[in-house]
């Protein structure tokens, strides 16, 4: 049986991880390679690196980081942030990334999804969607939820699947940062609509929230950042808890 995946997400700026990480025994908490190795050892099934660098040197720095991670890491990982064209994706693939995640570039140019899927295969293309509830509708937002678009979340995800997205990373901006649990209602609804894997994101605060999102929304994977970085939830404990609840996991 296919396992449900647990995915820590790391923000990277100028080749260094940012946001607090307080693992013990880390020589350098900002080193993405060391952090990634630590997560792999703990039993993370996959990792997502989100590049938030804004400088011109961005691409070069990122490629070097991806290569370093790929040299060390023996689990799959996704790179997101600033990917706008085939050449960006090609460089990341050749540096060892398993998947790329696109968000605003796909909203501005939906054909990018199709082009990436045709060039690299659907398995390489993750569509990240930030959604927020506005006037009774779920609307796609950009820039970390600051900018609303005219796209309704359900329609956009369906369109992206048709264009060749291989996986959806859905972040509920209403739940993100609240630690009050995932948006199981919306995730379950979207999950029923599509035939590609979906990663739940936004709202994880406790182990019960993970159990809940797998049981209620039946998503394929759950992603979180701070609860893992600050050691509030340890992945081995989480996997045991999920297994106790009869959710298939890799231990």
């Amino acid at each position, binding site marked *: *049986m296919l396992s449900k*995946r647990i995915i820590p997400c790391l923000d990277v700026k100028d080749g260094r991880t940012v946001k607090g990480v307080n693992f013990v025994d880390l020589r350098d908490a900002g080193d993405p390679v060391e952090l990634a190795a630590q997560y792999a050892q703990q039993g993370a099934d996959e990792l997502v690196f989100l590049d938030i660098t804004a400088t011109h040197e961005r691409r070069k720095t990122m490629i070097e980081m991806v290569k370093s991670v790929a*040299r060390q890491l023996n*689990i*799959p990982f996704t790179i997101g942030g600033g990917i706008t064209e085939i050449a960006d994706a090609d460089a990341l693939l*050749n540096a*060892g990334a398993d998947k790329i995640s696109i968000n605003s570039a796909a909203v501005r140019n939906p054909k990018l999804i199709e082009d990436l899927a045709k060039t690299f*295969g659907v398995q390489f293309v993750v569509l990240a969607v930030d959604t927020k509830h506005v006037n009774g509708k779920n609307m796609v937002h950009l820039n970390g939820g600051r900018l609303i678009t005219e796209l309704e979340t359900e329609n956009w995800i369906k369109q992206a699947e048709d264009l060749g997205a291989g996986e959806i990373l859905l972040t509920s901006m209403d739940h993100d940062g609240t630690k009050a649990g995932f948006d199981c209602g919306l995730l379950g609804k979207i999950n029923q609509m599509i035939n590609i894997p979906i990663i739940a994101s936004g709202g994880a605060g406790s182990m019960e929230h993970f159990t809940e999102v797998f049981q209620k929304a039946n998503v394929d994977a759950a992603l979180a950042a701070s609860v893992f970085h600050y050691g509030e939830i340890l992945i081995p404990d989480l996997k045991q808890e999920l297994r106790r609840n009869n959710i298939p996991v890799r231990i």
Partner: protein
Amino acid sequence: MVGIINYGAGNIFSLTAALDRLNVTYGMVNTENDLEKYSHIIIPGVGHAGAAMEKLKGTGLVEAIKKLTKPVLGICVGMQLITEHSEEGDAALLDIVPVKTKKFDKSLNIKIPHMGWNAVSTKNNPLFTGVEDNTQFYFVHSYFIEYNPTFDIASADYGLKFSAAVQKDNFYGVQFHPEKSGKAGELILKNFSNLSL
């Protein structure tokens, strides 16, 4: 020393990185003469099987690969290439292992691609030495190799039972990605590099 068939189907950085971690030496196979230099051969591959086959034909290595008597390991699409035919692009493949590569059927109530960690039920085969039965490996594919007890050395379930690994004579194939499957995956690569026929 492992020779990797260099035919441009997908990135091989992760594979060579895994071999580096295992201290397994390797080089690239670009020509027929290169095949002589190595004791073991890996056929990597991601993407479209039909397109990968066309690329492989472009290297002029097809006949030489079919004649190999040293251990050969196809990974993912590289495994599919050693089968007879793929429904992906209705492509005739190397036909080394007489089984077919088929598309996962949505009507089985499964998501496609099959993406993530799945348990593998292994048979007694040197490729899986030291790997516990039902160990999980990382898969990402939309086409699968039909289960055939004659050639199957490991199977997995996703809507139906399919071959996660096959063997015929010196030819091996794994559908999962050993280079992305944690310690168990690394063990598969190590076992392969130690195979002697």
